[in-house]
Structures are given as structure tokens and as C-alpha cells.
């Protein structure tokens, strides 16, 4: 035990001398250190799934630390990348079936990885209700995003509203760069058809979201 203590003292003395000299690393060094950790500290059932950790350009720009603000140039770049990313359903129909959309909106599952296994389902859930209030009276709703109760009542269901709603779900950063809202279509979490059903759930007058 004494020997261990001596070894400790020998190692820790220089460390103690260094005490007080420690400084924050510069941003580039921190980034390098942290990115190396990310590349080494996760596992996945297939190498392709590890790519989820790799940031695209927009995610890099949108990872500002603390209260740091986007510059105008950065915001414009994110908006442009978002605009260019948006794809529409093959049939061109932006408003689908609200009943299908409802099921999706309440579904928070799909594509998670645990115990070396990817959660495989026919399709991913839309995750909407995790963060947004939707149909009035439903209690089990999150509030990370704004309430969407009465969305269609307030905005109507014109073609313009349908397109705006579709685009805000597919890639909301085209309108609010770096907002907390996931780019559900652009990142591949949802398909264009799924999003069209969610649009219907939000704007269809028959949808529970728009119950008066």
C-alpha cells in the first residue's frame, strides 16, 4: 500500500504544480476532442447506423453553445439548405387522410436502438404529441413545442396553408432556422406521404384538432 501511495505522490506532485495553470482550451481544440469522443463512444448494430452521429452542415451551424446567436449569413445558409431539401409526395397530394395522420401524431416510437437491436417497425411514429398539444382535452401531451390545438380553425385549409404546413413539418428550418423542431422529412424520419397525412390531421375541419 505504501508503494502505491508513493507512486501516487510521484504522479500527483507535478499535477499539483500545474494547478492554477489550467486554462480553457480554444474552441477548435474542444471541438476536436469532443468529436473524437463521439466517434469512439457509441455502438450500433450496423456501421451505417453510426452515421446518425455525423452532423450535416445545418446541424453544425445550429449547435451554438449557450446564448450564442446565429449570424445573418448562417441563418440564410440554413434556410437555403432547408428550402433545397424539401421533397413532395410523388402524387403531388399535400393533404392526406387525417385519420392516418392522427395515428401518426400520437405515435412516439420507431427507429430507436437498444441492446444492439434497432427498433424495426413498418413505419416511424410522427412524434407530434410528445411535444405539441393537439386535440382539445387530451392530457398526455408535451409542451416543448407550441400548442397546435385549433390549428386549422385559426388558419383555414387553403392550398397555401397546406403547403406551408407540409413544409414546416418536412423541414421547419426553411422558416425558423435552427428551431427546436426536428426536420422530420429532411432527416428521413418520416416519408412525404406520412407528412401529408399529418397535414390533414392539422388542417382538416373534421379532424379532432379542429373541434370547436
Amino acid at each position, binding site marked *: 500500500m505504501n508503494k502505491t501511495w508513493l507512486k501516487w505522490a510521484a504522479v500527483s506532485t507535478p499535477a499539483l504544480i500545474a*494547478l492554477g495553470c489550467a486554462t480553457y482550451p480554444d474552441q477548435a481544440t474542444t471541438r476536436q476532442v469532443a468529436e473524437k469522443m463521439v466517434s469512439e463512444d*457509441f455502438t450500433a448494430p450496423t456501421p451505417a447506423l453510426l452515421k446518425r*452521429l455525423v452532423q450535416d452542415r445545418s446541424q453544425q451551424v445550429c449547435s451554438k453553445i449557450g446564448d450564442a446567436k446565429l449570424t445573418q449569413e448562417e441563418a440564410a445558409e440554413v434556410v437555403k439548405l432547408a428550402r433545397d431539401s424539401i421533397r413532395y409526395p410523388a402524387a403531388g397530394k399535400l393533404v392526406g387522410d387525417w385519420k392516418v395522420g392522427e395515428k401518426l401524431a400520437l405515435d412516439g416510437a420507431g427507429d430507436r436502438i437498444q441492446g444492439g437491436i434497432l427498433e424495426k417497425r413498418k413505419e416511424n411514429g410522427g412524434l407530434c404529441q410528445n411535444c405539441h398539444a393537439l386535440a382539445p382535452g387530451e392530457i398526455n401531451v408535451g409542451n*416543448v413545442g407550441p400548442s397546435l390545438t385549433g390549428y386549422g380553425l385559426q388558419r383555414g385549409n387553403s392550398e397555401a396553408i397546406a403547403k406551408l404546413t407540409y413544409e414546416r413539418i418536412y423541414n421547419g428550418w426553411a422558416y425558423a432556422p435552427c428551431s427546436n423542431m426536428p426536420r422530420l422529412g429532411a432527416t428521413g424520419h418520416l416519408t412525404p406521404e406520412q407528412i401529408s397525412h399529418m397535414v390533414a390531421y392539422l388542417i382538416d375541419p373534421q379532424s379532432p384538432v379542429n373541434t370547436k
Partner: protein
Amino acid sequence: MPRKQNSITALAVVCLATWGAAPAMAQSGDPLAVGRQMLAEDNPGELWIERGKTLFHQKRGPQDASLEQCDFGLGPGKLEGATTRLPRYFPDTDRVQDLESRLLTCMVQLQGFNRDDIVKRAISPAGSNGSDVEALTLYITSRSNGMKMNVSLSHQKEYDMYKAGEYLFYRRSGQTDFACVQCHGGANKRIRLQDLIHMTDKKGVQEVVSTWPAYRGAHFVVRTMQWRLSDCFWQMRLPELTYASDVSIALTTYLHYQGNGAVIKVPGFKR
């Protein structure tokens, strides 16, 4: 007669406590607060402390040794206040370590356990009897109960770890575009009915750093900070965080340092 008086006093105290709680609930507008309070007062996690204590002193592993010589930073076997200073730099491993990674070091070096075997079992299945690591982590942390978090960044590697943790807290990736801050950057936020702690706020982050390990009601087991982090990454649809990895220690260092001053009170109680 004195006994009767006592019970009346006790009843009065309970009533007063209830009256006290009711306006508080009305004020915060949180109908779940009362239920949470009731659960926290009768915490099954307490049972894990005794088990952790037994495991700590028992001679175990291929080297038939206890953990009594394990140094958590204040000297071999010194547990009082040790977790208030974690994560910290350890010269013998030349690494910044949190409680769980340090415990791993000792279980491997002193007791001769196989590292991969411990890591595989570290996070127990829901509804099980819990893992040795979970019980030990709770016991060791409980020896700092009532003491204030006091993490230091005096070593360069501690600074580097802290800054990496900060970077990671804000690093967005994956198909949900989430970093930690998307859910934990605001006050009074919830994912469905689950409260999200406001971690960019001093009080919020202090709640985080002082209540893990915690008894998780939905899982019927004690969960540790390592579990908490890995579960977040799971919900974010990211690959699996390696137990006791640098990413986990960086995030823990970032949170713990900011939570300095918080009084440790474990086991916490979570939904």
C-alpha cells in the same frame, strides 16, 4: 396519554404538511406535484443502500478483495464527501472519471473482475433485482448525503472534459436534430407528462446533480446517471452510448460543475 398526545401531534403535522403542500401546488399549477411528493417520501431505493454497503465491504471477485482500498479521490476507502468532488482527474489512470467509471477501475484492479462482464450487467433490466454497480453507486453516493457538490476544474484535463461536455450538450445530430438543450433548455417543459429538468438554469441543474442515483418507479430499480444519459440518447434515436465512456463523463462533468453547491440527497425518486 402521552402516546395519544404524540399521535395527535403527528396527525397535526401531517395535516399541516398537506395544507402547506396544497397552496404550493395551486401556485405552480402542477397537478402532478402532490403525487410526486408522496412517492418521494417513501422511497424503495433506500433498500439498495444497505445492499451496496454489504457489497462494498465483502471480499469478492477473482482476487477475493473488498472495495475498502478503493480511492475515490480523497484517499483509499474514504467515502464521506467523495462524490461531491466527482468527476475528477485521477493520476493513476491519467483520466477524468465519474463515480461509475472509477468504481469500474477498482472492481477490475482490486477485485480482478472482467471489465466487459461488469459493463454488460451494469445497467440492470427493468423489474429485476438491480445490478451490483447500481447498488454500489448508490451506497457510495449516499455517504455524501447532506454535503454540497464541489467539483473542481483545476486540472487541465478537467477543464478539457468540462468544455467537451458543454460542446456535447449543444451538439445536434441524428434524425430528430436533438442535442440535450432542445429538451432541457427551458423552464416547465414536458415530453408528454414527463417533466424535463431545466438544465441551463442553476436550480434545475442542481436538482439533476443531487438526486442520482434514483429509484425509478416505472422500472422498479435504482438507476444511475450513466443510465439516465444512455436513455436520453436512445430516445434521440442515436447509437448506444458506451457505459462509462468519455462522452458520458464529459456531460457529467459539465452538469456537475454547474451544479456546485447543491446538497446531495440520494436516492432520488423518479417516475
